[in-house]
């Protein structure tokens, strides 16, 4: 509900003012990461989600599913990107406990501001700062494992750069993100816990190669805190992305999310479809 209201109102406000965004090069708008921000798959990037340039706006939606041995994460999200400056996002997580039974839902509201640069054209990387407000709805399990809070805010700073023709003539993209967080498993297991309830700085990185204007492949790494003392592991994935047009992208990844709530070795397929609506 809130999600559609958000997109709706933003579209109504801006539709009269600006043109729809198609002012970036294909493949350079990136994807939508799990928490709704423009990014890779699991890491938020400095790039904003849409193809809007300084004079344009765009709205995007995506759906992502990660199928693990004992869990399944379904994400439905949307974001708007305004004048290649500000990105507002919302993502809905439904985390199925496929082995134990049950579901944990949370909503993530995000905002990101581009502080400097252009991912392709500036000499230095594009830099953005962002935050993600996470509101856990099903709080019972978080309570059970000893989480301190059921809402939390992550703050991050991201740097992203495309190097044209850098890898044997192919374009190289890299991203480095520092995140201050208390979230346990994205927040699905609450925030803080018996071992730590302070903000910690986590590093996240992505590296990829664009093999044509339509295919990219790469990998990502995301450091995680272990506030609950359950041995929460860092995440990683290896991905391929197909970008047939500026309006749609498909990503297939192999994700290794390690131990989740005591169930070790959680690996599986990550599938995501995203599109620019406007």
């Amino acid at each position: 509900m809130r999600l559609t209201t958000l997109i709706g109102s933003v579209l109504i406000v801006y539709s009269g003012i600006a043109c729809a965004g198609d002012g970036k090069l294909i493949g350079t708008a990136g994807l939508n990461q799990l928490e709704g921000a423009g990014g890779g798959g699991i890491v938020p990037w400095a790039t904003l989600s849409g193809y809007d340039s300084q004079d344009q706006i765009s709205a995007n939606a995506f759906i992502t599913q990660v199928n693990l041995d004992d869990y399944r994460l379904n994400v439905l999200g949307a974001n708007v990107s305004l004048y290649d400056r500000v990105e507002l996002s919302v993502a809905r997580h439904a985390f199925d406990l496929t082995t134990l039974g049950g579901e944990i839902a949370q909503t993530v509201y995000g905002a990101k501001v581009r502080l400097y640069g252009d991912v392709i054209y500036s000499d230095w990387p594009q830099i953005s700062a962002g935050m993600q407000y996470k509101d856990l709805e099903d709080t019972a399990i978080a309570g059970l494992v000893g989480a301190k809070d059921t809402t939390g805010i992550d703050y991050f700073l991201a740097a992203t750069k495309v190097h044209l023709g850098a890898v044997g003539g192919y374009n190289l993209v890299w991203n480095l993100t520092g995140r201050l967080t208390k979230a346990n498993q994205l927040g699905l297991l609450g925030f803080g816990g018996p071992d730590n309830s302070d903000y910690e700085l986590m590093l996240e990185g992505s590296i990829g190669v664009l093999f044509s204007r339509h295919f990219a492949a790469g990998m990502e790494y995301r450091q995680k805190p272990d506030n609950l003392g359950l041995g929460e592991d860092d995440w990683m994935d290896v991905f391929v992305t197909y970008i047939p047009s500026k309006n749609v992208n498909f990503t297939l990844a192999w994700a290794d999310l390690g131990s989740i709530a005591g169930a070790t070795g959680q690996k599986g397929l990550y599938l995501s479809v995203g599109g620019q609506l406007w």
Partner: protein
Amino acid sequence: MVKQLVMTAAAIALLGGCASSSSTLYEELGGQAKINEIVENFVHEIEYNNTILPYFADTDIDRFIQKFAEQLCVFAEGPCTYSGDTMEQVHGGMNISEADFNLTVDLFINAMNKANIPHPLQNKLISRMTHTRKQMLYL
């Protein structure tokens, strides 16, 4: 896992190193004939684009073709000298937006595709043109 990431980065760096050779981009592209073909295609792309064409309303197209080809030749380290005006002189006053600049690059990519320029060579040529962007945007 960090090790894997570092190793991939290292492998990518190596790959980048291996691909460099002694020939110039001009030779790799196929010399002046290919550059002329790209420029010709580019002019066609502009002709059929309603957003970019108006910029060229008062342009002497023959001059543009000659100067632009010279400039590409220089960017690709070919045996040419650029005899045109500076990018600031040429594009100043046009108030080119970021979107229109990127659209023009899209058209240029189409022109290279139609000239069958391989993707890696396209990227190399574009990477040598991009420094001109700050000499023309919103001026």
